[in-house]
C-alpha cells in the first residue's frame, strides 16, 4: 500500500488513520498502535517542517509493506538531501521543547534506516516487528 499526500500538516491525520488501521489488523494493542502512529507521524512531520521548510504543495509518500514478521514503512520525499548524522534523538536527560520527534521515532519503531543512496530526495525506512515476532536479543 502506498499513500501520497501534499506537504500540509492538516493531512497528517490521513497517514495516522491508515497506520492505525493496518496495525490493528495485524493484532497490535491499542497502546502499540498509538505509538506506531506517533512514530510515523513524527517522521512525516519532520519532512514537512524541516526537509520542505514548511512549504505546502510538495508531495511525500508513505509505503506500508507487511511481511510475515514485520511491518515496514518507507517514507519518501523530494526535498534536499538530509545529512544522516543530523538525524539524532534528543538526549534522554535533555529537557526542552522541540527535538522530541526523532526520540519518538527511534523508541517506537524497532529499526530506522536512512537510505543515503536514494536518488533524488530522501528515503527513510522504519521497521516494526509484529506482536510476538521480534527476534530474541542475544
Amino acid at each position, binding site marked *: 500500500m502506498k499513500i501520497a499526500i501534499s506537504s500540509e500538516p492538516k493531512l497528517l491525520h490521513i497517514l*495516522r488513520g491508515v497506520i492505525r488501521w493496518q496495525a490493528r489488523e495485524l493484532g497490535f494493542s491499542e497502546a502499540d498502535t498509538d505509538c506506531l502512529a506517533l512514530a510515523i507521524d513524527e517522521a512525516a512531520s519532520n519532512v514537512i517542517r524541516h526537509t520542505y521548510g514548511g512549504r505546502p504543495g510538495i508531495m511525500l509518500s508513505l509505503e506500508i509493506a507487511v511481511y510475515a514478521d514485520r511491518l515496514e514503512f518507507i517514507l519518501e520525499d523530494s526535498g534536499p538531501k538530509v545529512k544522516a548524522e543530523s538525524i539524532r534523538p534528543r538526549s534522554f536527560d535533555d529537557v526542552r521543547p522541540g527535538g522530541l520527534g526523532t526520540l519518538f521515532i527511534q523508541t517506537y519503531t524497532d529499526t530506522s534506516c536512512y537510505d543515503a543512496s536514494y536518488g533524488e530526495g530522501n528515503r527513510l525506512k522504519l521497521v516494526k516487528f509484529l506482536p510476538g515476532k521480534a527476534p530474541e536479543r542475544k
Partner: protein
Amino acid sequence: MTVQLRKINGVSIIDCTGEVDLYSSTELREVLLKEVRSNPLSVLVNMSEVSYIDSSGIATLVEGLQLSRQTKTRFGLFGLRSNARSVLELARLNKVFHLFPNEQEALEKISSTEPFAGL
C-alpha cells in the same frame, strides 16, 4: 481538534479536545500563550479529551510552562490519558509539569503549587 477557554474562580481552564498534531498545535499555542500572557493566577489545560499528542503539541505545552514562569502564573495539566502520559514520561517531562488526575483535584491543588516549578 477544538480548544475552548473557561474560567472558574480566577483559574483559566483550557479544554482541548481531539488530536494535537503539527497542524492543530498552532491553535492550542495561540490560545494557551495568549491566556498565560493575560497573567491569571493559574492556567490549567484539560487533557482528558486529547486522544493523541505529538512532539509539536508537547513543545506547545512546554512553551506555555516556560512563559508561565515569566508571568508568575501557576500552570498545570489534568486528565492525561495513558498515551499522552507515556510520551511525557518518555520525554522526561512528567516531572516538569504539575499533573493532576482530574479537574476537581487540579482546582483544589493548583493554588498551593510553586508557580515557577519546572524548566
